[in-house]
């Protein structure tokens, strides 16, 4: 019997195993290789809240899903191929396998003991197999065989079993191993024996798959990737780099005061590495210290930022108000996660929107921007920085666990192609400095920093007198200043792009999303288009202020459906801003992104109205 060859535009693969099984590494390898040969790629790591939950349990399963091929905007809903290293991994992922998909299990790990640990009986799990192309691969034992002669100890040998699985998968998809070989050589530079062992296992896995008839073989249609220089990037890394790029373009030192919190921690970690670029990361004693050191740094003339997630943003809310009233530039990156309270710290959600917009005492307007893909976290971090520095205001950048941890190949820019950021630093030669003397166009005040002779002035959290910035308790002045602060943010609408509608602009139904739901929504819309369903799609990344053509766009559609991973915050924001339109809500609050299929179902229903 000849191998079954499956022709596809793209595939979804998921690796799942124990936290210690190296699934994140395996997935990253496949994803990098795919990107290198010119596939579009999107990934979604998914790990437990515990560092290392008990071995073999469902709670301890660590997964890595990736989607690669021609048209890829999400990590995919259902897996074409699932690699499950033990019963718990299979159990946890069973419902995410495509009908007729391939399931490769390490049959050596499917022991009675492990079924028990997974909290399910063998028979029950067997039921799950039906409908799938199940391949019972003796991965552990073949790995042992493969390395029997290396002289490595049993534990080290078994640690290579993920490479065996990776080899299998490379074969399945006809993707080369040499990229991973190079990686292993570099990683184990000082331990060539280990590198060789891993490479051997991978090769053996590759050959094993070649030999087994039941393994399908995928032929993935080549994609048309834009020309350019690429690298893989996660949302958190991209956000950090976007801030660094903005500092360079503003010609200011970068300062990031922060405190670790899942899933935002990688941002401070990335900045901490960049002492070579002169960046100062300051790991404060808490979130309040993180933002207030940054406000101090902004006062002192650095480009200051802070990064956090929901509970941390709550702690920063008082200090954000201080940045609002002192009108200092500051970027606050908030990587959303499941709430309320500690909630679901490793899961994704879009439920901090209202906190970002309104979570402060008093009338305290702040621009809010939301990135929508891992790589455009770079662009929107840069944009948030530009707005902060050019409009002298704190800016909130929202991302979330889904895009922060997800990766994709990124056609990265040359710095020369990015716009210069024009800070509001007053010229040393200016005659005088009036702290709150606003630019009549933008209402932005000028910036003078300690060290500049003759421009000494005092800032603070008390209401300030128009122009001079001195403390003022005058009733009318408070109204004047409140309106200035409000108008200043509203005017930013003139300095951001209009919103563009994708899909069929002249459809009756407009699908609205914001932030990280972009990939799923755009995929659903374009797939439905192929099936003849006409839909327009407006995706919001600038939330406050909204793009100036928003009302005009909304007015063109009969039905408007607003999709969010929360209980309906953006829809309520739209109701506030444009109450005259009718909006329908589509929400999910499971700590997971939408699936393309559930979106399609909903859109078909709405479009039929």
């Amino acid at each position: 019997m000849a191998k079954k060859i499956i022709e596809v535009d793209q595939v979804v693969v998921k690796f799942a195993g124990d936290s210690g099984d190296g699934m994140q590494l395996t997935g990253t390898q496949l994803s990098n290789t795919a990107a290198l040969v010119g596939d579009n790629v999107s990934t979604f790591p998914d790990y437990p809240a515990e560092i290392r939950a008990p071995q073999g349990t469902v709670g301890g399963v660590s997964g890595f899903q990736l989607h690669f091929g021609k048209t890829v905007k999400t990590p995919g809903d259902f897996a074409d191929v699932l690699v499950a290293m033990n019963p718990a991994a299979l159990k946890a992922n069973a419902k995410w396998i495509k009908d007729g998909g391939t399931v490769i299990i390490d049959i050596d790990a499917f022991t009675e003991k492990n079924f028990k640990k997974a909290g399910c009986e063998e028979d029950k799990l067997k039921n799950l197999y039906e409908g799938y192309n199940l391949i019972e691969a003796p991965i552990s034992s073949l790995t042992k065989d493969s390395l029997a002669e290396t002289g490595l100890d049993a534990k080290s040998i078994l640690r290579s079993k993920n490479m065996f699985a990776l080899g299998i998968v490379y074969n399945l998809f006809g993707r080369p191993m040499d990229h991973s070989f190079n990686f292993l050589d570099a990683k184990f530079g000082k331990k060539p024996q280990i590198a060789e062992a891993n490479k051997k296992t991978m090769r053996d896995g590759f050959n094993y798959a070649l030999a087994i008839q039941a393994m399908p073989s995928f032929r993935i249609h080549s994609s048309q990737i834009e020309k350019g220089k690429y690298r893989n990037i996660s949302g958190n890394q991209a956000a950090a780099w976007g801030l660094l790029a903005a500092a360079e373009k503003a010609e200011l030192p970068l300062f990031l005061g922060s405190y670790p919190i899942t899933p935002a921690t990688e941002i401070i970690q990335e900045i901490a590495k960049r002492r070579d670029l002169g960046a100062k990361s300051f790991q404060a004693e808490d979130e309040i210290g993180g933002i207030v050191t940054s406000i101090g740094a902004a006062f002192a003339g650095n480009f200051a930022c802070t990064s956090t997630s929901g509970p941390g943003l709550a702690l920063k809310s008082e200090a954000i108000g201080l940045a609002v009233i002192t009108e200092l530039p500051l970027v606050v990156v908030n990587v959303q996660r499941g709430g309320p309270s500690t909630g679901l710290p490793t899961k994704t959600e879009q439920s901090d929107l209202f906190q970002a917009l309104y979570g402060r005492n008093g009338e305290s307007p702040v621009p809010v921007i939301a990135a929508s893909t891992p790589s455009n976290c770079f662009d929107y971090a840069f944009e948030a920085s530009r707005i902060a520095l050019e409009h002298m205001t704190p800016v909130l950048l929202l991302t979330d666990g889904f895009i922060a941890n997800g990766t994709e190949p990124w056609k990265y820019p040359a710095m020369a192609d990015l716009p210069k950021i024009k800070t509001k630093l007053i010229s040393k030669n200016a005659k005088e400095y009036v702290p709150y003397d606003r630019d009549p166009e933008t209402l932005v005040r000028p910036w003078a920093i300690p060290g500049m002779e003759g421009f000494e002035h005092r800032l603070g959290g008390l209401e300030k007198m128009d122009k001079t910035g001195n403390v003022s308790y005058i009733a009318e002045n408070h109204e004047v200043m409140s309106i200035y602060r409000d108008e200043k943010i509203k005017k930013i609408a003139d300095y951001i792009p209009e919103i563009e509608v994708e899909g069929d602009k002249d459809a009756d139904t407009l699908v609205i999303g914001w932030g990280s739901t972009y990939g799923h929504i755009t995929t659903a819309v374009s797939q439905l288009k192929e099936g003849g369903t006409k839909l327009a799609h407006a995706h919001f990344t600038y939330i406050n202020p909204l793009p100036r053509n928003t009302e005009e766009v909304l007015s063109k559609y009969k039905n408007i459906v607003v999709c969010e991973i929360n209980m309906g915050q953006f829809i309520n924001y739209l109701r506030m801003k444009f109450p005259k339109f009718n909006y329908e809500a589509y929400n999910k609050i499971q700590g997971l992104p939408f699936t393309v299929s559930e979106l399609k179902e909903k859109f078909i229903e709405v479009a039929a109205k």
Partner: protein
Amino acid sequence: MSTEKKYTFKDFKSDQEVRWCPGCGDIAIMNSVQKAMAQLDHNKEDYAVVSGIGCSSRFPYYMNTYGFHGIHGRAGVLASGVKAANPKLSVWQITGDGDALAIGGNHFIHEIRRNIDVNLLLFNNQIYGLTKGQYSPTSLLGQVTKTSPYGTIEEPFHPGELVLGARGTFFARSIDNKVKETTNILIEADGHRGTSVVEILQNCVIFNHGFYNHIVGKDVRDDNQIWLEHGKPMIFGKEKNKGLVIDGLKLKVVTIGEDGITEADILVHDEKEENPTLHMALINMQHPNFPTAFGVIRAVKKDTYDSLLEKQIEEVKAKSNILCMDDLLNSGETWTIE
């Protein structure tokens, strides 16, 4: 050092009306600060005076320097951020006992632990002034205040003890109306590299008037204060005949000329001793058994956070081949689609 000074203390007065109560200790302290600044060598534009919230924290508004009146409790992190961002500045942190030790206690101990090069002036009036008289973490056990109508039930912090508990390198104590002494202490504090904590007993004439009378009262002050000077014997008293000696692991007050005690027996103050044991004992001396210690009690050398940060940046820069964003973007694994 230039002999001709660039400024007089008046150069440091801003155009804003001083709004403390008449007689408030804050006014005298401000005079000391302005006098110290007039004697120091910094350029005026290189001063940054930052604070939290409280009566004392209004301070920056009255200074003709760069200034920042922050939010309650955050003076320490505000100062840390300013200094870490621009180590060239002379950063002065003004904070009350509530601001520094109640809501701001954590930033206080971490700033000290990091030894950030800031002059930290703790205005200790043992009360919340601005909110009109509630007890603070330095109010005495049993003190009756607006929130303790039956007396507090909380042991107060000894600020100096907490400073040492947080690994502090500098601690001094003064009194609001001792302008000359305070000025000199502030000059030494500014010279010290690291977090220089200066606790200043400050009278709140409205809500805790005369709380320090047992120390500053005319009749008692000579016997109840000891002003320490580095390298000088620890002598005090109206007749300058009392001194401190060590007895086991404790301090003892002795009288020179009695029991065969001579000046040579008296402890000599060494603010530079790294071992904190004696400094701690001096800080903890309490009325009525001991005089209260004033002056610079501890001033030991240690690297500051801000200098180590600059140093690390230089070192990493020297070794790295990523020197601009383009380098970073092109670093590691990249590929080209043609």
